[in-house]
Each structure stands twice: as C-alpha cells, then as structure tokens.
C-alpha cells in the first residue's frame, strides 16, 4: 500500500483541528502531534517517530502514547530528531519533572521503552524499507523536513519553514519526488507576523513556487493555523490552487502517484 495517512494536517491544536502528523508506514510516523485521536486504530505498531523540531505541537502525544502502551509494548519506541530537538525533548519533557524519563525505564522483557536517536541533515536513515533524508528548513529553531522514499516513490514532507531555496533545489534535482507537503500557515495580510514566526503565507508561497522547475508532482498544503483557517483556505481556494494542489485535512489519505 503506497499511501500516507494524515493523522493531523494543521500547524497546531485548537478549533477541533490536529497538528501535522503523518503515518508513513504502519511502524513509522513523521511528527507526533496527534497519535491517540487518529481515526486509524492501528497505532500500536508505531516504533519509529521522526520529529521535525522540538515545538510542543510536534511531539505532544508521545508522552501519552508511551505511557498508555507501555504495558503492551515489547519493542523500543525510537525517537529521531536533530541534536537540538532531542536535547530539548530530554531537558524539557522527559526530565522526571514534566514527565518520567522513559529512556531509563525498561519495558517488560528488558528493552528500553524509548530510545532517542540524533540525526544529521542530509544523512539518510533506513527503517522498515523506508528511507528518510532530513533536510534543514528556514525556521526560527532548528527544523528539518524529510524526503521519504518508499516503494520507488518519494514524498517530501517539508516541515515548518519560511522562504527556503534548498527546498526547491531538492525538488528540482530529485525527480523521484512525486508529491510534496508544504506548510502555509497565516493569511497574506499577516506577512510581517509570518516573517517573525518564520512561516509561509499564500503570497509568500506563491513567490517561492517561482523557483520550481518541475511540474509533474502533487502539492499538498498543510500547517494552516486553526485560528486563521477560514481566511487562509479562502485565499488559497479563490486564486491560488492549481489542478495538482490540494489543502490537506485531518484524516486524509495521500496516495503516492
């Protein structure tokens, strides 16, 4: 099955919307803002979570996921992220104050319940026949997106970003990429706010797309702010979306072409 389940499509939680979270394969998740409220029942097979950065909405459900499934798990939960991401997760979340440090708590059978793995930009990681290449974005804290190769097809989940030429370089030169998920968070009239928060608006994204040299790929718009959803979606729908673009929503299934 060459598809990706969207557990959450938005920039954050609120207004009945879930933060961007993608089930790449039964065992692999990119970001973890919503695991437990996904419509998909088969979350007990998740063993690998690749984080894009250390904001709360990216990892929000990991503490509850490991706590609730602790008793039934026999294999470690691997959490991948940049050094900054992993260090902040350890210091601020799994610190025996906000939440127990599960990396020190073995599962029944002895395997550690959580294993943190630091990743390097541009260094590919292969798990369960899926290859993930982290690529730095331009954001106000260290952030990566992932080019994900699966069954001969590749999808690029860009992650939180502001203007970032490296994204378009990657898409232009890696012709295996047949779909891309890119964020567009605030309405164009909030361009200064978007610049401060290093997120895109429809107008800035339109400018960014001028760097694209390939047109044979599908674009999915993600990371819309739940509080600004109506204005961002209105702007995108009125004069922006082309035939190969759609706005993602919670629960959607992306089929790789």
């Amino acid at each position, binding site marked *: 099955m060459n598809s990706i389940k969207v557990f959450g499509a938005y920039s*954050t939680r609120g207004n009945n919307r879930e933060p961007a979270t993608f089930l790449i394969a039964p065992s692999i998740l990119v970001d973890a803002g919503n695991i*437990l409220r996904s419509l998909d029942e088969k979350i007990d097979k998740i063993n690998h979570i690749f984080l894009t950065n250390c904001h709360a909405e990216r990892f929000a*459900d990991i503490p*509850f996921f490991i706590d609730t*499934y602790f008793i039934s798990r026999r294999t470690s939960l691997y959490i991948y992220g940049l050094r900054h991401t992993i260090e902040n997760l350890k210091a601020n979340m799994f610190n025996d104050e906000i939440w127990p440090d599960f990396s020190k708590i073995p599962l029944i059978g002895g395997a550690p319940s959580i294993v943190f793995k630091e990743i390097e930009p541009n260094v590919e990681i292969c798990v369960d026949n899926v290859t993930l290449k982290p690529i730095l974005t331009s954001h106000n804290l260290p952030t990566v997106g992932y080019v994900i190769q699966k069954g001969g097809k590749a999808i690029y989940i860009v992650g939180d970003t502001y203007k970032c030429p490296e994204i378009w370089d990657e898409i232009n030169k890696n012709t295996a990429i047949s779909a891309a998920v890119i964020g567009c968070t605030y309405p164009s009239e909030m361009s200064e706010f978007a610049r401060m928060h290093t997120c895109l608006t429809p107008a800035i994204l339109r400018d960014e797309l001028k760097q694209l040299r390939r047109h044979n790929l599908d674009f999915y718009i993600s990371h819309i702010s*739940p*509080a600004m959803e109506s204005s961002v979606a209105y702007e995108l729908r009125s004069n922006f979306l082309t035939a190969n673009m759609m706005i993602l929503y919670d629960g959607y299934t992306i089929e790789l072409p």
Partner: protein
Amino acid sequence: MKEKAVMLGAYGGRSKNRSTTSLLLSESVVIDAGNLLAPLGRDAKKLDHIFLTHCHLDHIFDLPFLVESFFVERVSPINVYGVEHTIEKLKANIFNNTIWTDFSQVALLNSNESVLNLHIIEPNKTYIADGIKISPFATTHIVPSVGYVVEKNGRKLMFTSDTYKCPAVWEILNSDHAINTLIIETSFPTSMAQLAKASGHLTPGLLNEEIANLDRSNVNICINHFKIEYMNILKLELSNLKYTKKARLLDDGTEILF
C-alpha cells in the same frame, strides 16, 4: 441551591475518547488544563483563571494550545496559578521560547498587559477568582502538588488531584463539615501498590484504607484519574471494597453537584 462543577477530563492518560485532568468550576475558572479545548470549544476563550495542581504534562497539556488559540482575540490576560515549583517548571520547560512561545512576555494586541500572567500561590491561603474561594493544600505526590478546597456560594468541594496517602485530606474533611463532596484519585490496580507508591498515586486498596480515616458519613466521594489501560480492573476492584463501592466513578463530562 447546589453548585455545579464539571469533570472535563477524568483520566490519567489520553486516548481516542478519554482525556486528562480538568475540573471546570465556572465558565471562567478551572482547575488543571488537561482537557479544555475539545470539550469547551469557543467557550474556552472565556477562561480567565487556571489553577494548576502540579506540573505534570497530563495536568498542563492544553495550556500552550489554549493560549495560542485565543491570544489574538483576548482583551485580558489568562491567569495561571500554581505553587512555586509548578510555575518555575512552566517557565523553564514549556513557555521558554523553544518548546513554546513565552506568552508572559507577549502583550495583548489592544493593551499593555501580557497575554499570560503566571502567579505563585501558597498552600493554606485562600484565593478568590470570579467569586469562588480557592484554598490550596499540600498533597503527597512525586513533585510538589496541591489539592484545592473550593467554596462557591457557601458550598464546598475538595479536589485532591494526584496523591498517594495523604493525612491532610482526612484532617480537613473531618474538621470542615461544610465540605460535602470529595474528588480523589485512583490510578493503578491494587496489585501495583509498589508502582503506585513510587509514582505518588493510589490504588483501590490504598484508597479504601484511606477512607477509613474519615469520621463522617455525609461526604459524597467521587473518583478520577484512572489509568486507561487498567480501567476494567479498577472498576471491578472499587466496586468490591467496603469504602469505595459507593463512590461515584467520574468520566469526561460528568457533572458534580455539591
């Protein structure tokens, strides 16, 4: 006339349809922030006072998302109250400009006031919010934690939040007969007493022993903070013990009249 509180989140974990601790006291006052956005929807914007019992994630989970959802629309700050340890951890680990924006340093759009005000409270003092008197008392958990005695129009309720055996709970209840409702916790099965002790929680067996300390028979006992994975055995055990079998087991959304 009886007063009402609503248990917005009654569990010690999150799942598809179960949520972590929040006890709504009025449309603007709540204890703990485990589950606010989903049950309250747009009404969550009316929350002005959030009293935290301690810094564990299941009690603060919705706080960053609540502040972010409404800071553009709000005209007055969100006030968050906790003991010194709780407030320090919120500042150091959550609102630290890395995990989340430090909204205590962000001004409201139409005012010089901050979006978020963090207040340190002390046990055994009384605080008033929206006409409700709220008195924290120290409990027995693995991080500094408080329960609260709540007084609304002369009616009194006690919410212990997370705790292991705690003599103060029974001393207060035995001395203040105006408190007619107790919301206390049970997290793990009786066979896991060791884990319960190590993590600062109660089991049905421990709670049964604890209630034996109560000199009064006119206290309505409600139980929350069940660990989801042990729900069935907890129900079974609680229904078979002398002092817990009449207790009311809370669910998300349960209304408590006191």
